């Protein structure tokens, strides 16, 4: 299985790193849709990691996304740090925010999902009300763009694309490593019964806490990237519910138990929505997206990836 995926992965990477910039690099609009989809994909990956490994379904990933965005935006505007430092700082900021959430680790299922959502709301209100630091509802504009490194301008579409693509790829690899480790095994085992894993010596709270931190970091970096890419931020946008719903849709659509699934799901859903459905139905095009989702769940509940796989094997057989 793992062996079979490898050539696929290399082909995909080549496609993403070489073919896409060469063929689409000059089409600003398509590139911006793709970049946006990768941002969603990054959050989707972080969400799926928490769901698949931590066994925790979160409705509040916008909390991490928003905190990451604000952390990096403030670090670069107010403190004047370079953007390259801002991105990891965004991740760390989100991870630090997730420390405040450690008490929710003892909650289960929907209790956990909503507690995180409550944090997202609280963070949004803090960002609105604490205007001396966050500049309140007016938001932060003029956030520095991605820098020029070694003569390569990353603030352009292709540059930004390569940056977010690399971020997503690195996170995907990190996820793979965790997943394949014994810790990954123990984490997945916990879903059925946490007691059962604890009595064999697994410190489940610690492991779950670690996953929350990792997931928060990933979503935070995505938020930070987005802030520097859009150059603008306000509380409603940074903590928007869309940063939860779209990634969830993307992750489950692609197959949230897989690693490539959430990212591919995000790319597929965004491209289909923006490039196809929006053409067909300029307002209310999400209706088609909704219908597609419903059809997907009824036809291939495991997501896009298993569907493709079964189609593929069907053809070979």
């Amino acid at each position: 299985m793992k062996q079979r995926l490898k050539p696929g992965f290399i082909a995909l990477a080549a496609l993403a790193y070489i073919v896409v910039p060469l063929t689409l690099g000059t089409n600003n609009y398509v590139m911006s849709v793709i970049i946006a989809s990768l941002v969603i994909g990054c959050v989707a990956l972080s969400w799926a990691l928490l769901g698949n490994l931590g066994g925790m379904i979160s409705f509040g990933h916008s909390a991490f996304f928003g905190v990451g965005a604000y952390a990096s935006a403030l670090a670069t505007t107010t403190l004047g740090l370079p953007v390259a430092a801002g991105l990891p700082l965004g991740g760390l900021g989100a991870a630090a925010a997730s420390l405040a959430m450690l008490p929710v680790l003892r909650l289960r299922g929907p209790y956990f999902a909503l507690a995180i959502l409550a944090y997202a709301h609280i963070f949004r209100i803090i960002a609105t009300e604490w205007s001396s630091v966050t500049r309140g509802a007016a938001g932060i504009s003029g956030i520095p763009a991605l820098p020029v490194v070694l003569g390569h301008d990353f603030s352009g579409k292709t540059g930004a694309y390569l940056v977010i693509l690399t971020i997503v790829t690195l996170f995907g690899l990190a996820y793979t490593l965790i997943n394949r480790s014994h810790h990954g095994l123990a984490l997945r085992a916990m879903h059925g019964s946490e007691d059962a894993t604890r009595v064999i010596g697994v410190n489940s709270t610690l492991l779950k806490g670690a996953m929350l931190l990792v997931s928060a970091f990933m979503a935070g970096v995505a938020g930070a990237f987005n802030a520097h890419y859009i150059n603008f931020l306000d509380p409603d946008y940074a903590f928007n519910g869309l940063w939860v719903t779209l990634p969830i849709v993307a992750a489950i659509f692609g197959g949230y138990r897989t690693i490539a699934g959430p990212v591919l799901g995000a790319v597929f859903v965004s491209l289909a929505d923006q490039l196809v459905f929006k053409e067909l139905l300029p307002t209310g095009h999400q209706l088609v997206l909704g219908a597609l989702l419903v059809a997907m769940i009824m036809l291939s509940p495991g997501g896009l990836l298993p569907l493709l796989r079964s189609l593929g094997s069907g053809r070979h057989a």
Partner: protein
Amino acid sequence: MTELILQALYSGLLQGGSYALIALGLALVFGTMKIINLAHGELVLLAAYVAYTAESQLGWGPVAAIPLALLATGMAAVGVHWTVGRIKQDREINSLLLTFGIGVILTNAILLTWKADVRSTSSSWLQEAFVVGPLYSMRSEIIFFAVSLALLAALWWWLSSSWYGRALRAVSSNRDAAKLMGINPGRVELVSFVVAGILAAFAGVALFSYGVIQPAYGGALTVKAFIITVLAGVGSIPGVLLGAVLLGVCEALTVTLASSSLQELAGMTLFLLVLFVLPNGLFGAVARRG
């Protein structure tokens, strides 16, 4: 100051009643099937828009619109049930995405049908003040508070004492065992969805009578309903009322004693605090371990 606080408590209580009404359908489906119907807010909104159409096109008052709203949400609920019933694996998570998708469809269908305008009832009778001593409210709030209590009581009785209610809980507890007892899970779940649809219809008409509606509003309704359901403790109907009133009162007091920009903050903080003390909600049962 006492007058302010009294009014805040009263407003919070009434607000709680309306929250409870909105949450009830979601709590029912969640409590009996472990399915989070993310399209619930949209069902409520659909009923509200049906009431709007009845008022603006046919000149019917909100109360007269209830049967129409029931028809609309009832059918929509059957639709949701039908799709949820097709899910073969990972029901809990897939139903989440499925109902989310249905919610998206409904939101956009509402947007396309009724446009983005803000709507509310134009009946002035419902908006008149209803005054008891120092306490002020609208007639519509009082009426639907009473409706909310009545529906809560009815639902509570139905779930705890009727055969269907028991069957519902049995199915959610252990599907195979329920079949062995002669219970057809598909059928009782359909009933549960339809009842949730009925509750959504009442909630929608109520919303139209004392509040304003907009197509994008459904998601916020779902979140509110969901928060109350969880605050209550899964499956607890009295918990829904208690949780909703607690939230309403907490919000109203925040407005009065601090600022209304902190209202949401206070509500969410209350929610978290309750969960930290009672991880299974106000009335949630604690399962045996080992």
